[in-house]
């Protein structure tokens, strides 16, 4: 049956068709829709399956892994940066193996569209010694989910699926299974202490050897089932392109459009590779070019003087692929003359910059504004974390961003290393649950003095508003009580769209900080303006306009508050775009030194 699917839909449907009935993960663009779509398909087909967000990727992985060693077919989803968090259990689970099946989906982000780093999860698979499948389109992602689950079952190994953003968020007409034959499978954990509870060195050493054997078997399987059948289509050109994932599409389009003579061999499982068998193929070629995204994962497994790639500096080493980059690689390797077939003139006049910015009406903006207003830049350090509030960067309200949870641990560090400054850490509710609790315990335990503001909008907003623990179980799980459980009181402020009140709250924290001997912690109860359920009745209803006579173009609003509707018009005065304004009215009070913002009308 044909269906139009986005990559992440295709993956979710593939999981259903592969009989997976336990999915656990943590949201992260570009992976976030997989679990949510799985829930939708599950409900649509009335299947019984577990699909829930975990507090972080390590937890998500471990839940799915326990399911797998009980014999179920499971899946953990995350993005490449999340895999760093889950790497601890992954390394061990790879030694131990499993009984049922487990697909680990880690979505990569070549080109840094929504990530701090451009990692290659395939390299992580190589590091952990588990096989990885690299789809290039939504259709392939669907097929490889099913294949991956089968392989995992067959080899008792975790199998990784590594889609990149251009697969997860691509849309294609896919051929998918017609009917559904899957039933929820019942787990049954069988006690086997030497296997599941192996303690180093004796148990783990044996498992390490088994892992190596398993890899050899998978390499052979890779050759027999995935690579060898494709070698029949090679035409005997002088140049061989080894591709993987999205690299394949760019290469195929470029060589057909520009009539370049080269054979293309796509490696669906870029690790583990049957090195010797592949290198035997090279004798027929003058040059072998490896096109892969993002790290030289394939290239590192092969060796030949004919090999051209990232390690030899013939292929670009950072950023996503494009056909222009494919042509450069061909030219660098001396296959074609340098070409500009995929270059075109840009518009060079200045255009309005639109860096990622918080939505109009977002409460985070007010909190950041209030912090910078009360805690002066020269005397403060603002640490922050990963989430929508990261965009407070635009307001110059953030000094550091490292990884999830680090706002709190780094605040600890700064409180020791630069004690004359006031450190104000900001973190969202989802991130606090993800990795913020442990560093808070550390800070209380060692009496580190800083201010922590937890921005609680009760959703994981940045990745598409996935549910958070307290959203689902608000009476059991509550940030205020968690903070108190860590041994420190928690000051609560319910956000209102009156920036004076938010500023006053920050002032009260400042007062407390002066006499404090431990962290001063606050939770601001907010909402996300895109979250219909929670924002209802709390959104504003005034539109604001600018009194042009009063506006002196001092830049103050646009630098300190930076609401997207604000822009300069042709007359050089501030103007508010009525189509973007959310009607919060926050800008009315404090942010303009000449009071140029005026109320226009009630919406």
């Amino acid at each position, binding site marked *: 049956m*044909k269906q*139009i699917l*986005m990559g992440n839909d295709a993956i979710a449907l593939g999981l259903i068709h592969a009989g997976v009935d336990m999915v656990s993960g943590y949201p992260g*663009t*570009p992976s976030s829709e997989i679990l949510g779509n799985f829930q939708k398909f599950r409900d649509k087909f009335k299947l019984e399956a577990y699909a829930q967000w975990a507090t972080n990727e390590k937890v998500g992985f471990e839940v799915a892994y326990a399911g797998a060693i009980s014999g179920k077919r499971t899946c953990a989803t995350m993005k490449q940066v999340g895999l760093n968090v889950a790497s601890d259990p992954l390394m061990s689970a790879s030694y131990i193996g499993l009984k049922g099946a487990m697909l680990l989906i880690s979505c990569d982000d070549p080109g840094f*569209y*929504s990530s701090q780093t451009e990692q290659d999860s395939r390299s992580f698979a190589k590091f952990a010694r588990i096989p990885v499948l690299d789809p*290039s*389109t939504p259709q392939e992602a669907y097929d490889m989910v099913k294949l991956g689950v089968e392989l995992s079952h067959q080899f008792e190994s975790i199998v990784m699926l590594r889609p990149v*953003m*251009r*697969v997860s*968020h*691509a*849309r*294609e*007409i896919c051929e998918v299974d017609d009917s559904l034959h899957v039933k929820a499978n019942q787990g049954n954990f069988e006690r086997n202490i030497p296997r599941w509870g192996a303690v180093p060195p004796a148990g783990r050493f044996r498992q390490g050897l088994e892992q190596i054997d398993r890899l050899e078997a998978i390499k052979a399987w890779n050759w027999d089932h995935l690579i060898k059948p494709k070698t029949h289509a090679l035409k005997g050109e002088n140049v061989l392109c080894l591709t993987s994932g*999205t690299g*394949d*599409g*760019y290469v*195929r*389009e470029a060589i057909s459009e520009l009539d370049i003579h080269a054979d293309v061999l796509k490696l669906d499982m870029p690790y583990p590779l049957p090195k010797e068998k592949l290198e035997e193929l090279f004798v027929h070629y003058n040059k072998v070019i490896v096109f892969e995204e993002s790290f030289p994962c394939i290239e590192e497994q092969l060796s030949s003087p004919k090999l051209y790639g990232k390690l030899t500096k013939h292929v670009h080493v950072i950023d*996503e*692929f*494009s*056909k*222009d980059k494919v042509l450069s690689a061909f030219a660098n390797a001396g296959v074609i003359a340098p070409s500009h*077939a*995929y*270059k*075109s*003139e*840009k*518009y060079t*006049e200045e*255009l*309005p910059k*639109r*860096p*990622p*910015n*918080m*939505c*109009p009406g*977002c409460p985070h903006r007010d909190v950041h504004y209030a912090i910078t207003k009360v805690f002066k830049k020269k005397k403060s350090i603002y640490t922050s974390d990963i989430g*929508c509030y990261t*965009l407070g960067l635009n307001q110059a309200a953030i000094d550091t961003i490292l990884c999830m949870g680090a706002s709190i641990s780094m605040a600890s560090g700064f409180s020791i290393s630069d004690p004359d400054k006031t450190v104000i850490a900001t973190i969202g509710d989802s991130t606090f649950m993800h990795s913020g609790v442990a560093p808070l315990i550390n800070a209380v335990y060692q009496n580190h003095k800083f201010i922590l503001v937890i921005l609680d909008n009760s959703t994981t907003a*940045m990745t598409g508003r996935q549910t958070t623990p307290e959203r689902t179980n608000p009476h059991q799980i509550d940030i205020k009580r968690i903070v108190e459980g860590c041994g420190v009181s928690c000051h609560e402020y319910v956000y209102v769209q009156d920036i004076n009140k938010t500023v006053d709250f920050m002032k009260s924290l400042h007062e407390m900080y002066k006499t404090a001997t431990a962290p001063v912690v606050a939770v601001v109860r907010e909402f996300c303006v*895109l979250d219909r359920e929670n924002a209802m009745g709390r959104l504003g209803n005034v539109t604001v306009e600018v009194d042009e006579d009063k506006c002196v173009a001092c830049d103050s609003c646009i630098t300190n508050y930076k609401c*997207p*509707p604000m822009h300069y018009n042709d007359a050089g005065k501030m103007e508010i775009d*009525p*189509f*973007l304004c959310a009607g919060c009215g926050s800008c009315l009070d404090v942010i303009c030194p000449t009071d140029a913002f005026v109320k226009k009308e009630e919406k």
Partner: protein
Amino acid sequence: MKYQIVIAGIGGQGAVFLVKVLSIASALAHQKCLGTENHGMSQRGGSVSCYVKIGDFYAPAIDEGQADLLIALEGNEALRNIQYLNKDKGVIVMNAPKNFPKVSFETHSVDAFKKAKANEFPIDALNVYMLGVTLALDPHFPFSCKEIEEAITQMNAKVAEKNIVVLHQGINDAKDKK
């Protein structure tokens, strides 16, 4: 057939909706289709660009100098993406005011913001309005009005009727201009 479309706009204007409509239309027209959406950090008000490649393609992204059509829901976003257009046959359909800079492509522009401000159509249907303008003005556009209507209905039957009215408003306004 091979036809490549870049859709540019700002967050909140519904560029992604158009990708979905065009991919459904491709299926209705029995064409292969690859589309992408640039999700991520861009919240409401940030630049958004999406690609739709209809026909025999393997890579979801569009390269510079390749696109047949650029639909811009906001004028400056058209300029920001102009390098994606094919030098010889690229066409722009954009929402921009009258005094907008001239560029060296076949350009069709309507001031849709002005019309929305005058309540001629609801601003949240700007994307569909621009699709109507495209249907009327781009002679190479690979879909018929029927296919687009059907695709809009398949997307969301509940609001289809309203959307189709706006679609035709776009078509008629564009024809009047011609």
